[in-house]
């Protein structure tokens, strides 16, 4: 027993189909783990931020002229 909850194959296959993607069966489990990690990351970045935090600042930073 790995202790990991089983993946919802139907759900992950549905998500893949929605983007026109296909993946070999053996890829599904590790792929679902990656997607779960990114889902959690997306949740984390949605937390409130100061109004002044604009993505444009990122694009300007590396330039000094």
């Amino acid at each position: 027993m790995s202790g990991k909850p089983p993946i919802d194959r139907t759900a992950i296959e549905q998500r893949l189909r929605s983007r026109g993607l296909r993946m070999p069966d053996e890829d599904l489990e590790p792929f679902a783990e990656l997607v779960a990690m990114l889902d959690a990351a997306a949740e984390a970045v949605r937390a409130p931020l100061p109004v002044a935090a604009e993505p444009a600042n990122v694009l300007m930073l590396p330039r000094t002229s």
Partner: protein
Amino acid sequence: MSALHDLSLAKLSRRIASRALSPVDLLESCIARIKALDGGLNSVLLLLEERAMAEARAAEAEIAAGNYRGPLHGIPIGLKDIYETAGIRTTAHSAVLRDHVPAEDATTVRLLREAGAVIPAKLATWEFAIGGTSFDLPWPPARNPWDRRLDPTGSSSGSAVAVAAGMLPGAMGSDTGGSIRNPASWCGIAGHKPTYGLVSRKGVLPLSWSLDHAGPMAWTAEDCALMMGVLAGHDPEDPASAQVPVPDFAGAIAEGRRHGLSGLRIGVVRHFFERDVPCTPPVLAAMEDSILAMRELGAELRDVTLPAYGDYAAPGNIIARAESWAVHDAWLTEDASRYGSYGRRRLASGAFITASDYLHAQRRRAVLIARTLEAMEGLDAIVFPTARGTAEPMGVDTVGPNGPPAFFARVFNLAGGPALSVCNGFSPEGLPVGLQIAGRPFADHLVLRIGDAVERALGTRMRRPVLEEVTA
């Protein structure tokens, strides 16, 4: 007298400049070593023996005629196989681009050629600089020269391996989430991720536009400084290229050799390696040795607090995966089976990130950059380990969701400032450990100066991997 393959790029360069060494002899030595050793290391995807020999002969003739171009003249430099080369196959180590022959050189390749460098090889990489150490690609993965059972990690795996094994004095890598610094650490070499915008990415196959950096990998920080002297500068063909004065990298190294690190203020990000991601004993011991050495060299050191290392992970992963999906979506939806398993999974995982999440990640990135720079206020550089431990067995997944992060790289891909990895020690098993030195944007010269001083103080550049000839 040391064998040529034990000498740093800088030492070889000085011999060529004084005409004590012929570029042809140097190239012959590199090619002989590649042929003898690379059968067991797999760092070279394409050996350009005839072309390179013509380039070395031309360099030799020019230098003999008194037309020495500078420190890279006649020096063999390998290219990670995501650097486009005119008329030469550029595959990204992938079946997808197996037959891709670009019409033009990448800007950095052009600059290297104009500086008189010789290009003898295209080098192994993780597939499209993301795919992991894979055994289902058209070419095998590179192996760590300190122990062939171990992983060099990536993605600039071939570049790190070729340099560490003394097969090439320098190589080009790329760094989106540590892909220069991480293999530099596990292979015991120096790797420099320049400030975002300082080195052109035009003609380097993209992975994640706002995180990608092109940069040098070599035996020493001084070698990287010499390469930066050729590579840095504005490129109107790279939309992210900065128009800023280019620092005197070699001058900064010379300054450090005259004055040590006196006058420099260096922050130690102790919470990264003691609390956020606790490191292994050899890494912790090498950190303390490095801190002591920097202090003895005259630097003023103090602990500094950045946002927790984990805070950088979520925006870093969202931005990296969303941008790499944008690069690869057409190919993946057309036929994902052409990718290796690692590459396919990692690239396709970005397919479900929404525009809103991407923008929130960029907003969070802006806040993290501000906090990082604020923490560095009054400091010339900050230091922390490159990796949590030493090299792990071939194929171990260091990017996946399981376990603590293996590397401390993401911070400066997000923040854009320079970050260098140098070898600062060895484990009891003889495996190299890396120190990361990061600076404020465009202070690459200071970072390289500190790296050079640390390498020399700790004496880590006297030790090379012991290699036996392997032909298969």
